[in-house]
């Protein structure tokens, strides 16, 4: 009731500045996906080893993010990790025989799910399950394989 024009003006400017900063942060700094129009559907995949995949990880095709990992849980009856993925509705032409692999972004990057398209005419819908999966590459297994292949080669050389 007592504030004069100048005070009201500067307060208004301050508040607007604050909201402008917030707007700037939310739109310019963060992932834009949340701002694209809504609508998504859920697709499932079962892995024997998910590596370090976390909920919120990206789901991408051809390198472009089309969705997010929504949840990961362990199903005791099939002894596999069940991963639910939420895919943006605009990407509704993913063949049912596509391949979902767990990949690593760069050397130190986090893991994400990359989907390679198959050839089927039928497309994934809400609740579908991707049959073909590739588990995360576990470093120990890789090394064991490498060591095994070296020793194999030296054995075969030795035989000659």
């Amino acid at each position, binding site marked *: 009731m007592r*504030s004069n024009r100048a*005070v009201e003006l500067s307060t208004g400017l*301050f508040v607007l*500045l*604050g909201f402008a*900063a917030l707007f700037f942060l*939310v739109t310019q*700094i963060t*992932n834009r996906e949340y701002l694209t129009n809504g609508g998504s559907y859920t697709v499932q995949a079962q892995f024997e080893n998910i590596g370090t995949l976390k909920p919120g990880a990206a789901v991408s095709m051809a390198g472009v993010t089309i969705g997010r990992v929504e949840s990961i849980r362990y199903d005791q009856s099939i002894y596999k990790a069940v991963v639910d993925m939420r895919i943006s509705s605009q990407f509704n032409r993913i063949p049912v025989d596509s391949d979902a692999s767990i990949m690593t972004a760069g050397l130190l990057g986090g893991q994400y799910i990359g989907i390679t398209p198959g050839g089927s005419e039928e497309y994934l819908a809400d609740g579908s399950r991707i049959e073909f999966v590739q588990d995360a590459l576990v470093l120990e297994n890789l090394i064991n394989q490498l060591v095994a292949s070296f020793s194999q080669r030296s054995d075969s050389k030795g035989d000659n």
Partner: protein
Amino acid sequence: MSLLREIVENLRSFVATVGAVALFLMRTLAQVPRALTRPGLIIDQIHNAGALSLVIIMTCGLFVGGVLGLQGYDLLQRFGSEDALGTAAALALIKELGPVVTALLFAGRAGTALASEIGLMRATDQLSAMEMMAVDPVRRVVVPRFIGGLIAMPLLTVIFIAIGIFGVQVVGVQLLGVDAASFWSQMRAAVEVSDVMEGLIKGVVFGFVCSLIAVYEGYTATPTAEGVGRATTRTVVISAVLVLIFNYMLTAVML
């Protein structure tokens, strides 16, 4: 033995103070609905706590961002990941430095102003005069200031972060030659809206804490010149400690 007694005494007065603050908070909150009928008073206080703190917040934001740019670049360079400067600095600012530094600056500038204003009113009998005139000083003086601080803090936090990122950009891209495109794109890829929300929540909580401490200390100050001085000192110290403690707890919960 007397050391033990001292400790027990300190503990007891600490618990009593916590109780007093809690009761004061309830009394303040109870008066909020009626205080909202005088929006002019609240606007005055948002101006007092927020608009007048802008200069210090923006200046410090710029330099904190700048130093983040320098240190971040130096650190990341050792791993060959200078491109990640944008991500690293933005996340540091949004989640930690922004809310905490803003809160400490707020306590120092706005907190002391609030405490000394109210303390002075206490010392010059203005609060007693109001009581005599059957006006509840909590509703008239304390609540608008509390709400003003509560609204101003998160806004100041966000402004600090935004200016800070600008500062990182100036140092990183302009001065040190980090590639502008990767600076922004990496930042965009890594920072989520939830991160910004975390920073905002911290801003609100810290605003709550700092404003409450400031108005409490002012209201309960000894009505002398030194009493007011002590109240303002205590405001800064206690606000700072509580902000850091709450920061840890919030981070632990939100991570």
